[in-house]
C-alpha cells in the first residue's frame, strides 16, 4: 500500500531551540553546501600516504578537509585536500529543511531533524597560502 506515515517523535526537541543561532542543530547535524563537486577516491588507496582514510563503524571514511566557522561574522573557511581554500558564509534558510530518513525494511519515514542554517561555499576555490 503506497502510504507511509512520517514519524515525528523527535519533534519537540527539533522545535524548542528555534531562534538560537547555531549552524549545527541541537541534534548535531550540519548542512554544508559547495557550488561544485567534492571529489575523492571511492576506494581507499593501497598506501595511504597522508593517513586520510580510516574506518568508522565498519565503513570507509575519508578526511577531506578542515573547517573553521566564525560565529560572529558568519564567515567560514574550508580547506579541502592539500591545495584548496574556500571562503564561505553561514546563511539562514528561507524555509527550514526537514531531514527525512526512509527505512526500506519497515517502509516507515522518520523526520530526523529540522535544519535552519547552512554553510555555503559559492566562490571559486583559492590556493592554500
Amino acid at each position, binding site marked *: *500500500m*503506497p*502510504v*507511509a*506515515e*512520517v514519524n*515525528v517523535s523527535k*519533534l519537540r526537541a527539533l*522545535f524548542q531551540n528555534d531562534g538560537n543561532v547555531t549552524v*549545527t542543530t541541537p541534534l*548535531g*547535524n*550540519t*548542512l*554544508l*553546501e*559547495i*557550488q*561544485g*563537486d*567534492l571529489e*575523492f*577516491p*571511492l*576506494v*581507499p588507496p593501497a598506501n595511504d600516504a597522508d*593517513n586520510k582514510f*580510516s*574506518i*568508522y563503524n565498519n*565503513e*570507509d*571514511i*575519508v*578526511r*577531506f*578537509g*578542515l*573547517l*573553521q*566557522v*566564525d560565529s560572529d561574522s558568519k564567515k567560514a573557511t*574550508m*580547506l579541502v585536500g592539500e591545495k584548496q581554500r574556500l571562503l564561505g558564509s553561514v546563511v539562514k534558510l528561507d*524555509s*527550514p*529543511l*526537514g*531531514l*527525512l*530518513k*526512509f*527505512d526500506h525494511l519497515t517502509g516507515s*519515514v522518520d*523526520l*530526523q531533524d*529540522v*535544519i535552519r542554517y*547552512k554553510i555555503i561555499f559559492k566562490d571559486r576555490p583559492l590556493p*592554500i597560502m
Partner: protein
Amino acid sequence: MPTANLYSKLQTDEDYKLLVLNGELLAALEGNSKLKFKAPGLEGSVVLCSNDKTWLLRQKNHSNTALIMREFVSNELGEEKIKLPAGIEEPSVNHLAYTKQGSELEARLTIGDIDISMLPIYSGDNESFKKSLQQSNGIRWTVEELENISPCSEQEFAVKWPILGGCNVEGIACILSQEFISKVLHILLMSCMAESLNFESLDVSKVFSALNKDMGEGEEFNPFSLDVVRTVIGKFSRVNKQGKYALQVKAVSQWYGIEALKKFASCALIPQEEFMIKWKALFPPYFRCDLDFAALRGYFYRPLGTSIQYFSKDALPDDPRGRFAYLFKLQSTWDLNEMIPYIEQLNTTGVKIDNFVMKYARRKKQGKLTLVSAR
C-alpha cells in the same frame, strides 16, 4: 577560532531526503498533525497529507553538493599524524558527511481528491450488486483502502466521500446511484419528521432507527443500512464538532430541484412558474424549505428565451471556443448569471468572469442584467 575535521563516508547513505518545511507544513507539525506520504500507485504522483490538508510533492534538483554532516567521536582515528597548515588550530570536533543531497522536496498546497471513476455503483439492490461484482473483474477496495490510495487528507476525505455518494456496501467502496440517493433522502426526511428529530442536530444512529421503524425485520432485504444512512445524511449535512449532523436545507432543495428538472423538463420545455409548482410538489409533505431558483443554474437553459429545459454540463465540449459555440447554438442570448456555471471552469487564469466572456462572446448591459451573445 575552533577547527573541525571534515570527514565523509566513501559511500554516502541514500535513504535520506530533504523536505522544504514551508509555513503551512511547519504549522501542521507544530499543531501536532500527523504527516503522511500517499500515492495512488507506484507510478502515481506522491502527495503529503496532514490531518486536514493535502500537498502535491515536487522534487527540485540542484547542481550543488549538499552534505549533511554529523558530529562524531572515535578513538580509531589516527589523528596524531594529521599535518596542519600553519596558523590552524588543532581540530576540536569531527564532522562526518553521511549523506549527499542533489535535490529538495517541495510541497505545494492542493485540494484533496478522490478518484471514484473505478468504483462500482450501488442502486439499493444487494443481489444485483453482488452479481455485477462477480461478473466484472475490476479491482475492489474497502473504503479504508480507497482512502489510503486517494491523494486526500483524512478530513477532506471524510467531507468529500459522502458528498460524492461514496458508501460501504458488503465491505466494498462504492457510489450510490442518483436514484437510490433520492429514494433514501425522501424516506429519511419523512422518518425524521415523523420522529420529530431536530434537523439542526441529527444523530446518525437515531436517524437510522427512525428510518428502520417501519421496515420489516429480517424478512425482506433492507437497503437502508447504517452506512447508507450515514452517506446520505453526510451528503446533505455539515458535521459539527460534536459529530452531529446539521441538515443543509439549501442542498436538499437544490437536489429536489435538479430531480424536478430531469423529471419535468428533460424532453420538453416548461414555463418557469409551472416548474416551481412541480418542484414544490416533489418534497415530502410538511417539509419546509425555500425554493431558490438561482440554485439550479448550471442545470437548465432557455431554448426560446423564457421557458426552461434541463441541460447537464457533462455534454459540453472542453475547449472554450467549442463550448461557447455550443452554448449559443442552444440559446442565442444568455443571462450571464445563468451562463457562469457552464463556463467558469474554463476560466483557468482567474480573471473577472465579465472580462473572461469578452474573449469569446459579446456582452451587453440591459438594466441589471448582463446579456451574453455570440460575436
